[in-house]
């Protein structure tokens, strides 16, 4: 199986059986170091103060990190090229990473091109986000079955293949923290999200460059990961292609220890700082966030909404690519013999007219009201609901908007004519 190239995701609850068939695969097996418990899936990350300092790993040894994770039972998911974009998908080895590629992004524009160097993380974020793993686009929530004595409900044990996310950007860590509040921290717990969230290992990558639609600096979420990861990497290209390693959890620290990577020098550290500083200086967009919550809520009636409605196609792209958008709908799918019906949850978007339908009609029939709902929610009422912004500044909604609507520009325009009347 390990030799076959592609691994099936481990069935939940059967991780160790799966592991046995991949044992012997890897490098210095941690089972040889009995006093060091492996960072095994299912064990929750414990926050710790980074006391271990930074380590440095040459690019040739990145594969060791991958192998160590796989030996510990983690499936790997990370960036790779598909259909002309960098998406998140299963990774086998470090060779699957889009080495030497970068992306060019602008409002309504996305393209890949060669960099001219061997950078493995030399691009920013693509159309996918990690929410597809934690909050799956389609998931069966439960099924109702007709039996001799009536109806029965079957709730599936949520599938949660242990997955190490490789290359999680700072804005994406922030997005995961935002969705944590929605699905775990607001009174009710979503069992699907929780099962998956409890079974991931987070390998962050600090951005060494920013894209044309990036504005994480404005949203105070990046480009450097400040927590919420197990390990954070900074890719250094100058004077020897290498990675600075920082652990953010005990299990991250144990994994770094397994790699026996040398301690980072001052030169390594300042090179990593320079990479992040370069990303800050390249930030493609800015958004003035001071008072934006109040600004938007006092401008529900503003001519700019008509302006944006004239460009918005209500295509839902922005909500699909957004790493924090959490809306969903449910559909009942009965089988042909009508003795079983699956209750299936799928991503939904506030841009559809069905979204707000109540008997008789839609509450938001106009595109104007739907764009307004999305943007005011994202930047303003999200604060009321979850005590944070719903925007992390990743820029996806700008890049993937077919007409190039730019949320930072919309805020700027409303701010410039605060209080204008329709």
């Amino acid at each position, binding site marked *: 199986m390990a030799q076959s190239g592609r691994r099936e995701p481990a069935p939940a609850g059967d991780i160790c059986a799966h592991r046995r068939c991949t044992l012997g695969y890897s490098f210095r097996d941690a089972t040889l170091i009995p006093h060091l418990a492996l960072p095994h899936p299912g064990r929750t990350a414990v926050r710790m103060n980074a006391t271990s300092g930074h380590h440095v790993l040459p690019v040739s040894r990145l594969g060791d990190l991958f192998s160590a994770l796989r030996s510990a039972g983690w499936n790997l998911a990370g960036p790779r090229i598909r259909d002309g974009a960098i998406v998140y998908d299963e990774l086998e080895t470090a060779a699957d990473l889009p080495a030497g590629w970068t992306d060019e992004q602008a409002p309504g524009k996305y393209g890949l091109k060669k960099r001219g160097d061997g950078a493995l993380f030399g691009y920013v974020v693509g159309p996918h986000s990690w929410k597809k793993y934690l909050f799956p686009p389609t998931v069966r929530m439960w099924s109702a079955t007709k039996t001799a004595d009536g109806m029965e409900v079957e709730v599936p044990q949520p599938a949660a293949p242990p997955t190490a996310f490789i290359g999680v950007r700072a804005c994406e860590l922030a997005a995961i923290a935002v969705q944590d509040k929605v699905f775990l921290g607001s009174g009710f717990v*979503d069992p699907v999200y929780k099962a998956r969230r409890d079974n991931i290992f987070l390998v962050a990558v600090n951005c060494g460059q920013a894209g044309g639609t990036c504005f994480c600096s404005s949203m105070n979420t990046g480009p450097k990961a400040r927590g919420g990861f197990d390990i954070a990497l900074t890719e250094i290209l100058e004077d020897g292609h290498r990675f600075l390693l920082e652990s953010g959890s005990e299990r991250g620290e144990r994994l770094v220890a397994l790699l026996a990577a040398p301690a980072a020098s001052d030169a390594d550290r300042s090179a990593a700082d320079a990479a992040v500083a370069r990303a800050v200086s390249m930030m493609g967009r800015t958004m003035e966030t001071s008072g934006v919550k109040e600004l938007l809520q006092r401008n529900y009636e503003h001519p700019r909404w008509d302006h944006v409605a004239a460009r918005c196609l209500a295509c839902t792209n922005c909500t699909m690519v957004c790493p924090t958008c959490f809306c969903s709908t449910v559909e009942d799918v009965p089988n042909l013999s009508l003795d079983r019906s699956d209750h299936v949850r799928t991503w939904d978007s506030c841009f559809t007219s069905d979204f707000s339908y109540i*008997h008789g009609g839609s509450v938001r029939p106009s595109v104007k009201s739907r764009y307004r709902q999305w943007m005011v929610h994202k930047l303003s009422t999200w604060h009321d*609901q979850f005590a944070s912004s719903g925007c992390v500044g990743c820029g996806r909604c700008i890049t993937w908007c077919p007409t190039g609507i730019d949320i930072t520009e919309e805020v700027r325009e409303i701010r410039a004519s605060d209080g204008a009347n329709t």
Partner: protein
Amino acid sequence: METRADAGVLAPEFLRVTGRRKELADTWTLELEPRAEFPFRPGQFNMVYVFGFGEVAISISGDPAAPGKLVHTVRAVGKLTTALCASKAGAQLGIRGPFGTSWPVDEAAGGDVVLVAGGLGLAPLRPAVYRILAEREKFGRVTLLYGARSPETVLYRAELRRWARAGIDVRVTVDAADARWRGNVGVVTRLIDQAAVTAGATAAFVCGPEIMMRFAVSSLTQRGIPTDRISVSMERNMKCAVGFCGHCQYGPEFICRDGPVFPFRRIEHLFRIREL
């Protein structure tokens, strides 16, 4: 790894329909038998599941003092609610709940209460009426003002008479009637003008179509009732009832979780905004 309790928030429990009564041409009251007591507060709702069709949010319209019985009054407006209304005794329906906030009945004790209902909006108010009648002496003057489209669409007619005998000033009006109707004709807000509604320690509970609530609140405030003593019950599309699906957002509010019953003062500023 996952607790059933967590899963249970999103998965229904099937209950048997024990009774079904036709209220109006398109409106039925269903009685279900919970396995254990089903305590709820007046104004709360359940997600009701019909096999093969899906779930819909329906207010609970039974007596909170009789938690051994679960009562829903449903109007058949779409495929799902039509199938729901067709559920005969013995059929099984999935139930999740109860969810949401409730009418502040206890807070209203010691003063007058005005209940203003429009159309099927009487159903979510009925548990509040039961609660008030159970301790009628705790309240001052209690007035129920109810507007319906026509005499044929007046809900719970027999009960309205019973409530009038039990010490509630019940006034019913319809939008249109022929000469056989002996009652009021006109909008429900005109009843507010006619009834002995006074300010002071009066609490008002309003439930009906949004437009009707808008006019009712306006009449009540003209009578001097402050907007924090007026409660309204809001309605929006709902898929999950626990704040996950995003459908029921109303400005900063999740109607499923922060509502459906709101002090009007809390949402007053949203009421004016179109297509929110």
